[in-house]
């Protein structure tokens, strides 16, 4: 029995409206990754996470739960869950992740921030004002919820005096760079992915990785935003010899991630297909999106190693964290 579209999207819209997030994860989970990094508050240039990396452990937990519902057919509770969620945030019950999972994703954000610092890029962070972009609501056609949220985010950014945003995932990059300007009058921030920023700087080299791997382009970076060269340039500079899969660059094949919420089984099928295509080229797979990373990792067999590009860059250019 499929996951009910109406109740699930209703909960998403309600969360965005009431709690300014698709999956409200709490303050500690959202900004805990910054511990000890001395990132200044605010400034004209800020690292904007849109909470994507921080949300993935919760998305993983929820996807697992929804897949069980989908199989068991006990989806009649969804209407009830939606009405309760308006009053009490049900997300922590629906999407409970473990501290180890959260640490794995927080570490990617830490590495990204440390790489930017190592490259000499000056940036601040908005901490509790670093809000979700509303990407899922936009994709699912919840236009009123999305527009209201986008205007709210715009107000927060303007009030903080921000001029430039450095994003860390393709979805937030696309929302802020290409979608917000069409929906929010006056939205005039410069938006660049950290991969684009890093590719223009020189990173200190600690060791050349001297290994081969394959790359999985995110649909959004490749076909929506045209971010194809920066990850390749950065990996080449880290000593990674890339073997391109047959479907690569503008022809990349989706990881299945967008269907995690409403159609978990189909999502897994697509991810399995994509892992097969990548495995045919190399057992080492590099992603550049938290959702691709999560979805392909879940579908990968033990002999396929899926890692984010920031893992490779950190290994090549940063000292290990104590």
């Amino acid at each position, binding site marked *: 029995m499929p996951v009910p579209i109406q109740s699930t999207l209703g909960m998403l819209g309600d969360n965005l409206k009431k709690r300014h997030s698709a999956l409200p994860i709490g303050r500690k989970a959202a900004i805990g990754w910054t511990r000890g990094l001395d990132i200044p508050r605010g400034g004209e240039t800020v690292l904007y996470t849109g909470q994507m990396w921080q949300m993935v452990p919760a998305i993983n937990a929820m996807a697992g739960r929804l897949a069980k519902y989908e199989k068991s057919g006990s989806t009649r509770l969804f209407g009830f869950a939606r009405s309760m969620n308006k009053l009490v945030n049900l997300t922590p019950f629906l999407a409970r992740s473990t501290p180890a999972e959260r640490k794995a994703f927080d570490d990617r954000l830490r590495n990204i921030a440390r790489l930017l610092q190592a490259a000499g890029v000056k940036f601040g962070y908005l901490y509790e004002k670093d809000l979700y972009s509303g990407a899922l609501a936009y994709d699912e056609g*919840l236009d009123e919820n999305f527009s209201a949220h986008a205007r709210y985010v715009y107000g927060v950014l303007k009030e903080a005096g921000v001029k430039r945003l450095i994003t860390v995932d393709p979805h937030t990059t696309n929302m802020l760079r290409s979608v917000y300007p069409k929906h929010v009058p006056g939205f005039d921030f410069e938006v660049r992915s950290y991969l684009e920023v890093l590719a223009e700087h020189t990173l200190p080299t600690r060791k050349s990785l001297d290994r081969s791997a394959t790359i999985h382009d995110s649909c959004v970076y490749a*076909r*929506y935003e045209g971010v194809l060269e920066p990850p390749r340039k950065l990996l080449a500079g880290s000593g990674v010899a890339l073997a391109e899969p047959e479907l690569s660059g503008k022809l990349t094949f*989706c990881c299945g991630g967008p*269907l995690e919420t409403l*159609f978990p089984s189909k999502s897994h099928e697509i991810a399995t297909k994509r892992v097969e295509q990548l495995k045919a080229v190399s057992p080492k797979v590099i992603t550049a999106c938290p959702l691709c990373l999560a979805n392909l990792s879940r579908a990968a067999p033990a002999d396929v190693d899926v890692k984010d590009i920031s893992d490779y860059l950190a290994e090549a250019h940063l000292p290990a964290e104590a």
Partner: protein
Amino acid sequence: MKVDSGFLHTLHLGGEFDANLCMNCGTCTALCPLGIELMPRKLFRRVLLGDKESVVGQSETIFSCLLCRMCESNCPAGIHIAENVRSLRTYLNHEVYGLAEA
């Protein structure tokens, strides 16, 4: 088939539904990672014809599109397929699911 003459008009209010240039070549169907046979060319044809009932009956298919733009990047007519699918979702959220409140 029942034709609803107001269907396309309502869709345009939500977004920019644009499929008039589709020549039904089938590139989109051939490239779809989900192998959805209906998507997008047949579905869009039904929309253009005003066959609201059959479009609404395909809501699950409409919400299962990945918006990955594999079809769109290769569409010889340059149709904004992903945006069209989003328009249909917005329509369904409004007219069928009652999820319009901001």
